[in-house]
């Protein structure tokens, strides 16, 4: 098991955002976390990567308890985080953004496979990242997270605000990365089609608690979509 979240309780100020969340990601698995806006999906990911402290509970990454570990140390252990809203460095070039992903490593060269997945990044290497389109920035953000060859890729709404054709491309690439590199993926998505097309297992968050979980087929059979994810 690559990631185990046990009994996680997270507060943001006075608000109890996550209640007793239990979640697992196996090696090479793609796990999707679904739910409407404001259900605590982003907070869950932020707690896992160390940006938001947990009030109680445990996060174990590859047998190591990372619950209280600083974000840069969790990144060094092999977690590649791609937050909501891209979060690339706008004043650095594309190449510099990718190189920054090689934090703390002596060898600053970009792994060749990143350019195989995202050819556009090689073309735009010396362009300022802030001038890229939304879809290109998303590819750069994922590329940066992949630079350290992480064991777990954590993606927060990768399809948000991006045109459908690029979303499809990114969906395919995430699937390829998982198949070719064996990278596990923890994915938060509101785009149910995106999630269902690549995930092996799904969790559904409702008001900060896991209300349903199962394989894609099980979730679809149960009519969960209508109950928890539809308007």
């Amino acid at each position, binding site marked *: 098991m690559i990631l185990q979240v046990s009994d996680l309780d997270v507060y943001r100020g006075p608000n109890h955002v996550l209640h007793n969340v239990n979640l697992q990601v196996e090696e090479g698995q793609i796990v999707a976390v679904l739910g409407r806006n404001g259900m605590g999906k982003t907070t869950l990911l932020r707690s896992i*990567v*160390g*940006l938001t402290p947990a009030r109680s509970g445990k996060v174990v990454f590859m047998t190591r308890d990372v619950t209280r570990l*600083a*974000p*840069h140390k*969790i*990144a*060094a252990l092999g977690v590649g*985080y791609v*937050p909501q809203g891209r*979060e690339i*460095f*706008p*004043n*650095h070039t594309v190449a*510099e953004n990718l*190189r*920054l*992903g090689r*934090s*703390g490593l002596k060898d*600053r060269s970009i792994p060749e496979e990143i350019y195989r997945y995202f050819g556009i990044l090689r073309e735009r290497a010396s362009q300022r990242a802030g001038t890229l389109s939304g879809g290109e920035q998303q590819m750069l953000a994922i590329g*940066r997270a992949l630079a*350290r060859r992480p064991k777990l890729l954590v993606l927060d709404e990768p399809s948000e605000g991006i045109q459908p054709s690029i979303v499809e491309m990114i969906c395919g690439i995430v699937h390829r990365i998982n198949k070719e590199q064996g990278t596990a993926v923890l994915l938060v998505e509101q785009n149910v089609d995106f999630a269902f097309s690549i995930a092996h297992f799904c969790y559904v968050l409702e008001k900060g608690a896991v209300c349903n979980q199962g394989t894609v087929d099980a979730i679809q059979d149960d009519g969960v979509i209508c109950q928890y994810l539809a308007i």
Partner: protein
Amino acid sequence: MITSSTLSPSRVAAIAVVLIAFAVFPVLAGDYHAQLMGKFLVFGVLALSLDLMWGYTGVINFSQATFFGIGAYGAALTMKYLAATPGSSYLAVLVAIAAPMLLGLVMGYFLFYGRVSGVYFAIVTLAVGTIFYSLSIVLIDFTGGLNGLYGFPPLKLGIPGLWETPLNLANIYLVYYIVLVATVVVYVITRQLVGSPFGRALRAVKSNEARTEFTGYDVAALKMIALAISGGIAGLAGAMYIPVGVVSPQILGILFSTNVIVWVAVGGRGTLIGPLLGALVVGYLQTFLSETLVSVWLLIIGVFFVFVVLFWPDGIVGFVRQRIHPLLRRLGGAMRR
């Protein structure tokens, strides 16, 4: 004159012209101006040290002059008490660099790992500046108090025991050239530093600290090291100040620190060459205005500063890059036709 990472023939020519101009300046302008320019070059190095923190790491220090003053006092006190030791001049310069670096490390460790940042960090720097200013006045037996530190042997250049020549006003040309060479060396080294992976990480910190943190960088450590290096450069400037100025509590004070901020803002934050330029421009403006417009020069400096902040937020370098460069390009294009 604005340097960048690409060294085209025209750039190299421009740099050469500037360096030659600075090299012949004292010969053409005389002793008084050699001392003045030397002083402003030292200020330029001090401004550069603040730019590393403010322009590249995004952390403002309201008492950058404290590092400068500790460097100056450190070197002067070393000469006062240890002049007899062979190589004391070099020891003095070492102290001038190491003492502020140590302060930077200690401050950085407690403040950055303690998550004190932004406004709160700025206030702490004000407090630190005030502490050292008070110390320099109160420890009158060591520092000479408000009158300043006088009567210590001058820094000497050369090989101890074999041949030495003093660096003081009697040797003002030698002092000028040492300062000029040191300024160029510091600039080149700092330019390399900000272009390195470390420099890239500092710029990432300036862009967004949380983003840099989850990318895998220990942001507190980066800021602490940057503060130490910034302090070391400022301290070196302090040692260089001894032959061209007076070591007094003024150079440690908040008012002087504010000057440093003005130089960086006027020249152009985050450009390295901008702060150097800013120190020269404001320095000369201040000198000549205070001579001719005795009562209103401070007002004019103030208005000039406000003007720069409002209309030239990227400073002189920013203005040149945004307005003059495109103009020159079009001119060049027109002439080629």
